[in-house]
């Protein structure tokens, strides 16, 4: 069923926009901004405001109405996006029953990234928003290597500890710093002949499941991810591989 944005009536297609054009503020500039919004696929546009930022730059606030529609059913979600998850107790019971040994998990913020709050939220005792981290799971042995860990060092540690899963966290995405680092990670895996050896999880505020798959990981986890979601995925994927 085709849908459109809802302003104050179904299908009125109302959207709020703000953007800066490299133009001095003037009546003409407002007309250019209005015309620009129409070119973006809007039927009508009202430029509500223009603020000069400095000579040669003006910010515009505008409201556009568009006929562009989308059918939610056509939008395929990331395949295998892992949304359903067992809770703390179910995961530990599942591992005890189906895998019958402790899982070993190694994680880090790799490359230059020093944003450890994310990976700590997944792995440390304290966990995230009252959801315990993997360190607190009786059936999981979790090793958090912390910040700015070179890819090779993480992989060496994973081999040394006989890890079942490797957790990589990336936050800084400017100029695709994270993609550069993740490609290097895949090269290291190939060089060390570790292809398919671990279950690979990638996470971070700007990480989507699509990016993770493209980078050769088994799954991607974004903002608001809970520790038990990562634990469920590892446990179930390991069980599938065992079968």
């Amino acid at each position, binding site marked *: 069923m085709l849908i459109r944005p*809802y*302003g*104050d*009536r179904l299908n009125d297609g109302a959207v*709020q926009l703000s953007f800066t054009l490299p133009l001095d503020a003037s009546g003409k500039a407002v007309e250019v901004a209005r015309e620009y919004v129409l070119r973006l696929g809007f039927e009508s546009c009202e430029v*509500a*405001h223009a603020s000069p930022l400095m000579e040669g730059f003006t910010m515009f*606030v505008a*409201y556009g109405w568009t006929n562009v529609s989308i059918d939610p059913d056509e939008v395929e979600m990331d395949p295998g996006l892992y949304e359903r998850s067992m809770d703390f107790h179910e995961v530990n019971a599942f591992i005890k029953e189906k895998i019958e040994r402790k899982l070993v998990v190694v994680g880090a913020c790799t490359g230059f990234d020093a944003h450890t709050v994310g990976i700590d939220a997944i792995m440390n005792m304290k966990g995230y928003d009252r959801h315990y981290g993997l360190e607190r799971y009786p059936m999981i042995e979790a090793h958090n290597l912390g910040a700015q860990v070179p890819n090779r060092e993480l992989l060496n540690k994973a081999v040394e500890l006989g890890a079942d899963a490797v957790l990589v966290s990336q936050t800084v995405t400017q100029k695709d710093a994270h993609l550069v680092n993740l490609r290097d990670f895949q090269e290291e895996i190939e060089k060390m002949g570790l292809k398919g050896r671990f279950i690979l999880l990638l996470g971070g505020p700007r990480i989507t499941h699509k990016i993770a798959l493209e980078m050769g990981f088994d799954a991607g986890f974004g903002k608001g991810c809970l520790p038990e979601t990562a634990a469920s995925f590892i446990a179930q994927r390991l069980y599938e591989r065992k079968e």
Partner: protein
Amino acid sequence: MGQELQEAAGRLGLDAEKIARARECARRIAAPIHEYISIHTTISIERSTLRALGADGASGDGVPVPNLAVDSVKGELGKGAARYYVGALVETGWTVEEMNLKLASGYELSRAGVVDKAGVERKAGELTRAYCKRVKDNLAFRAKKISERSERENSPLLYVIVATGNVYEDAKQARAAALQEADVIAVIRSTAQSLLDYVPYGPTTEGFGGTYATQENFRVMRQALDEAGDEIGKYVRLVNYCSGLCMPEIAVMASLERLDMVLNDAMYGVLFRDINVYRTFVDQHFARMVNALSGEVINTGEDNYLTTSDALEAAHVVLASQFINERLALDAGLDHSLIGLGHAYEINPEIENSLLYELAQAQMARDIFPKSPLKYMPPTKHMTGDVFRGLVMNSMFNLVSKISGQSIHLLGMLTEAVHTPSMQDRFLAIDNARLVMKAASSLGDEIEYKKDGVIAKRAALVLDMAAEFLERVAESGLFAAIEEGLFADVKRKPDGGKGLEGVIEKADDYWNPIQDALESELFQADGKGGD
């Protein structure tokens, strides 16, 4: 009186004696108006009386039955329309429903004198008691719900407007706002309805910048808000606008459908809708008595003054108008707790210390009217298309409202200068207010204002100017002051504007069972009114 005096001192140390003098002036201003009111009725009051007695429905081409009934006894209205409507009921033996259908299809009330006086009095008594019972049941229902669900209420109450033009779309948007924790939903009337001398009949799905106020629309909204309220355990208040040529009629309809609040201010009608002063002040008294009986909070429109004159220069005019509105409301039997006096956050934000002046004026109103559910309204005049700056201005408004303990908080929309609010505009406004007000929850009790600092001095100055202004108005009389343009820089002649022709002198044998019931309930019973 004593108790009120210290209270008036409040947190700004305002001169309690000057406040008492201002109230005295308000009394002097009200007196001549009451004289005029007591000897006049209006075509709208007569229609309202019939509505309260049960008159409803409309003819094929949409003319409401109350209009048909009253117009059919046009010359006799000095005696009150009730005797003809009730007389016809007694004579024909029809039920009220049958009578309405007859009237809707051309039957005319006879102008002949009443024959069976006792029968008419008995029938009128029955109909009046039925009306009062329905109104009191509504009041009891509301009071019960409010007390049961009080902890879910925001303080101040968060008030949003819906204005799609289609009552069913309004209901959906109102539901969304209620689910987002809004406490009060106002349906903006279609533009210029205040100038119609009739109230459209039935549900409406077309309107300009708002939805027509009709009894059926009230019922649709009432049901939608009760349902939403039950879902989340909140009593959601419904508001509509009485001001205009049908003030008392909309008040009666509101009392029947359990509206919780009504905009009810003759000054607004005169200044912003050019309605005749005599007509609307007579209408107002009757309308406010109906509001009082049904326990509805009235809201007054002093915020509008600051859209046409400067908020710093005209602050004292807002205060003066509040004193006058308080007096007239008390005289109509409205208890302090039902007099939602209006004011607004409208000083140019670029002015240094504008937040302090706003806080001074908001706290001043709180101190002077401690028991009133003050209605505080958001910035409009200085809002621009920069919706981001709009959000910042609304945050400051939300903060001042919380610190100064306002009672009803009309949420500011970031798109105030752009369009009527969308669903997400309302969400952002509610989120802004709840976040700021929760964060600043007890800031008001935590701070004291420096004795004769900028804030205290500003409040004292505005009070002085208002007291002086009231003396001048008491000298010249309110209508003359309005003619001079003292209020909102708008000049209105006493015999100008719309609706004067609808004002009628009461004959000696004027009879209005509804008015008699109102007055006995509100005044004789506990001598409360007009303290």
